[in-house]
């Protein structure tokens, strides 16, 4: 088990199949939020959070019950974000958390920028939510569950699915 803290610096030592636990700050964004981020980048406008060394988690959480920071919060299908990912990696995004495979274009960009793609266990949203200690909407509240949230996570469990060498758990199985 590798322990990582955010923001990420060098992640090139990670290998597909490694079990990793993340502590620190991660940001949520899915389909519509990605479209808006790309729009801001294309227009040279400031982003709602610093992408340098950041991790984006593809998730649309359930509402929080009273006394809890967030509801169930497991990963959504990453491939929907494939065409909107390379520009974010170019801006310094270092890690992504989701589920399922990625396109050849994304894998190329991951290699080029020395980034990493993590998988969380899909359909384990109740369990995963226990590792989220705080949640705050920082952009696009009108998107509801799709808003961009700043999450404080503790020992958030993921597995390296695509490493910076382009090794792909979905194609070749674990490296270690």
């Amino acid at each position, binding site marked *: 088990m590798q322990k990582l803290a955010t923001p990420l610096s060098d992640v090139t030592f990670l290998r597909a*199949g490694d079990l990793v636990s993340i502590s620190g700050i991660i940001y949520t964004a899915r389909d519509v939020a990605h479209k808006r981020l790309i729009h801001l980048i294309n227009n040279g406008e400031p982003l709602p959070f610093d992408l340098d060394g950041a991790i984006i988690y593809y*998730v*649309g*959480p*359930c*509402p*929080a*019950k009273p006394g809890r920071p967030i*509801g*169930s*919060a*497991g990963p*959504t*299908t990453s*491939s929907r974000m494939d065409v909107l990912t390379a520009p974010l990696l170019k801006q310094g995004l270092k890690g992504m958390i989701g*589920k*399922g*495979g990625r396109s050849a274009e994304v894998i190329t960009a991951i290699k080029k920028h020395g980034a990493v793609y993590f*998988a969380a*266990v*899909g*359909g*384990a*949203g*109740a*369990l*995963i*939510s*226990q590792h989220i200690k705080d949640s705050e909407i920082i952009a696009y509240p009108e998107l*509801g*569950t799709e808003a961009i949230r700043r999450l404080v996570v503790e020992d958030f469990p993921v*597995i390296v699915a695509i490493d910076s060498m382009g090794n792909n*758990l*979905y194609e070749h*199985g*674990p490296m270690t």
Partner: protein
Amino acid sequence: MKTIKYTDIVNKTKELALEANFNLPKDVYNALLEAKEKETSPLGKSVIEIVLKNARVAKEEQLAICQDTGVVVVFAEIGQDVRIEGGLLADAINEGVRQAYEEGYLRKSVISDPVERINTADNTPAVIHFSLVEGDQLHLTLAPKGFGSENMSRLKMFKPTDDIELIKNFIVDTVVEAGGNPCPPIIMGIGLGGTMEKAGLLAKKALFRKIGSKHPKKHLAELEEELLILINKTGVGPQGFGGSQTALAVFIEEFPTHIAGLPVAVNLNCHAARHAEAIL
């Protein structure tokens, strides 16, 4: 003639929606337990272990098993001798869904128009399939259907002369192409025959058969069994990380069709195969 009150349908629908989202059906839980034992990949085994733990946490804490609490699909079988008092059946079901999703802190994923894409903010409307049956009861089956698996579903109109092997390949390819996206180990509903929309409906209905049940027709029971073996040989495995447990069950529902065709629909459900039913 039996009278069923609108408010009773609202309350029962709400109860079913909450139950389905918090409590994984026992047959699904047991099938996952069995899959964990059978799984050959250590990583696959630990994934199933996590999924089982998640189901226990969701039940204890009354949290959604999965944050994708879905579009609510309801099969409403209405006895011909039932009269509903106080409002429309569809309105009662939608009101029950609305209350459950608000009070249960469940995610609202439904948008009002597929092009404009404005969230309805209460997870309604449900997709309701009505059918008229004998008797004086109302049978409701409710399933919150997540879209990770729904998006990976397919339909194809085969030719009547196509070999059964082509159909098997189409079904297996659907699973391989879906990879980890539909959250394997999955449950598969296959609709054979009818028309385009009938095949889709049969496939959906098939998803909610009890795990362990076999098709009453021998040749289709054998096809279910063969497909399950073929799918588990693909190596997709839990979450697509590789392994022997890609599907927990394959269920076929069939209907007579036209001499010129053979519609085949493949509907996938994730391991969080949530559903609940009740009779009023």
